[in-house]
């Protein structure tokens, strides 16, 4: 028994180390004075953070990633909320089949989705890159929305809606006055997870960015091809902070650990 505990704590420690150490390294190198990323650092500077905001690729990329993540998450919610409501509340023929379709983007490798969308939407149908990119990110977000909202809806007693119908509210008003306020937490959690996944996504984004369409993660990759300076560390730190902050909000106010 004792050796088991010791074993698992050693494994836990190794995993933590493998996870934390590289991240800590990135944080440290982002403050280094050398012109290339190196460890340990010889001096301390904020220069690379300053440089980061001088790079139009990074600034525009961050803006664009933000816009795409917000629009894609909202679209996924707009489609996902009614879909989940229907899936959990109505007698639907082949319910599981529909559920699996909505969840399927999570099962297909993202790089395949990216390639397939590029081939069909951009090449064959000639859709603008931005629209294709949005569709890709929407598909990426949908499974998170479906899964989190399904959990939320299943927790909600159906007779609460019936009680509202009984006292004179039709089904549409009941949906907005009773259902939505009671799954608010699931909606927020779904939004945050979608946002993070879209904001950090590379495989799908890779196929659909271009000179006029810079996304932050791909900008980082492009920058790395030509430069190996701590600006990349700095931008990584910023991405980490944004993601961690959102996860903390989700965890603290919404109890994400219960939902996922």
């Amino acid at each position: 028994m004792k050796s088991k505990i010791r074993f698992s704590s050693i494994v836990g420690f190794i995993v933590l180390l493998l996870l934390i150490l590289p991240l800590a390294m990135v944080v440290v190198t982002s403050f280094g004075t050398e012109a290339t990323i190196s460890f340990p650092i010889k001096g301390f500077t904020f220069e690379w953070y300053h440089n980061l905001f001088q790079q139009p690729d990074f600034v525009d990329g961050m803006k664009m990633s933000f816009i795409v993540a917000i629009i894609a998450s909202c679209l996924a919610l707009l489609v996902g909320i009614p879909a989940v409501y229907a899936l959990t509340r109505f007698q639907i023929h082949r319910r599981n089949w529909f559920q699996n379709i909505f969840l399927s983007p999570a099962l297909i490798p993202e790089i395949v989705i990216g390639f397939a969308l590029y081939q069909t939407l951009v090449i064959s149908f000639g859709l603008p890159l931005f629209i294709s990119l949005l569709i890709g990110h929407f598909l990426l977000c949908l499974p998170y929305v479906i899964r989190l909202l399904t959990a939320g809806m299943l927790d909600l007693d159906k007779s609460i809606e019936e009680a509202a119908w009984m006292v004179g509210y039709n089904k549409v008003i009941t949906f907005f006055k009773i259902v939505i306020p009671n799954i608010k937490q699931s909606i927020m959690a779904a939004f945050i997870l979608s946002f993070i996944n879209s904001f950090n996504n590379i495989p799908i984004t890779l196929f659909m960015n271009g000179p006029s369409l810079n996304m932050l993660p791909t900008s980082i990759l492009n920058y790395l091809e030509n430069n190996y300076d701590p600006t990349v560390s700095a931008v990584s730190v910023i991405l980490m902070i944004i993601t961690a902050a959102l996860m903390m909000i989700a965890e603290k106010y919404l109890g994400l650990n219960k939902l996922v």
Partner: protein
Amino acid sequence: MAQIKINNLSHSYQKNKQILKDLSLDIHDGELLSILGPSGCGKTTMLRLISGLLPMQEGSIIVAGGDISKVPVYKRNFGMVFQSYALFPHMTIFQNVAFGLKRKKLSKSEIFEKTLSILKTTGLLDLKDRMPNELSGGQQQRVSLARALAINPDVLLLDEPLSNLDAKLRIEMREEISRLQKKMKMTTIFVTHDQEECFAISDRVAVMNHGKIEQLDTPQNIFRHPKTKFVAAFVGYENFVPKQWAKEHNWRYNDIISGSQLTIRPEKIELGSNENILNGKVLVKNFLGNNYQYIVETELGRMKVDTQQENYEINDDIGLSFSEKSLIELEDGD
């Protein structure tokens, strides 16, 4: 207030699962009618059809002279109390009760006054600013009742409202329902599987089985003169005697009912008297508090006997006796 006429109601889930079979029922204005039956007998389906929560398939429902069969649930103006209370979790008690009133063409002050008055009537005034999850089960059910009554419904529907409460609260709550129902003279349909519960407060009781009403009568008549074996068994007649057997004993009974069975309550049978009618052997002896219950194996099968006598033990040979008057004739059910 309203009189309800249910005509030839039939309902089935899927193709061959018929829940209600050509059911007709008249409910008088202002009466409290209970629908009593085991789970799966169709009583909840019937209530949901009346409420409009379930779309009707066959038959019609007339309320106060108007056919409501096609009126959507939110326009029926019926109050409903759910088994699970079904309070709106994100609203205070006051908001829960006022919610339905906001749908009516009333001024804000009228809504406020009416809500306060119904909270006062139901004894909830002190709890009005609490959230539902801060209330006990009994209090929550009280709020549910207040919410249903607030819209001044034409009909009040109660779907097993007491079954999630503990024994003491259950009695308290059913008296509250009865008091408010009489005070407001509201036509009420009360669905339950508990005979004691519904006998205590009902004007009439409809005993349901397999989608049909087996007997519709006052609680007294159902208790004293059950019509079928099912009703008898449901209201505590545990013993059944073939009419043929009684005939062989040259017993007089009315013989106006064509059935083949007679029934007798466990407390109407005596043990060990001088004029034994049946001989048997004690199989089980249970202490029930007020009395003992013996299960006795006889030539008529197992008979249950409730008695004060405690001096018999398992495997004792004993004699059973009962009078002709305590036997009740039953119709053959189908």
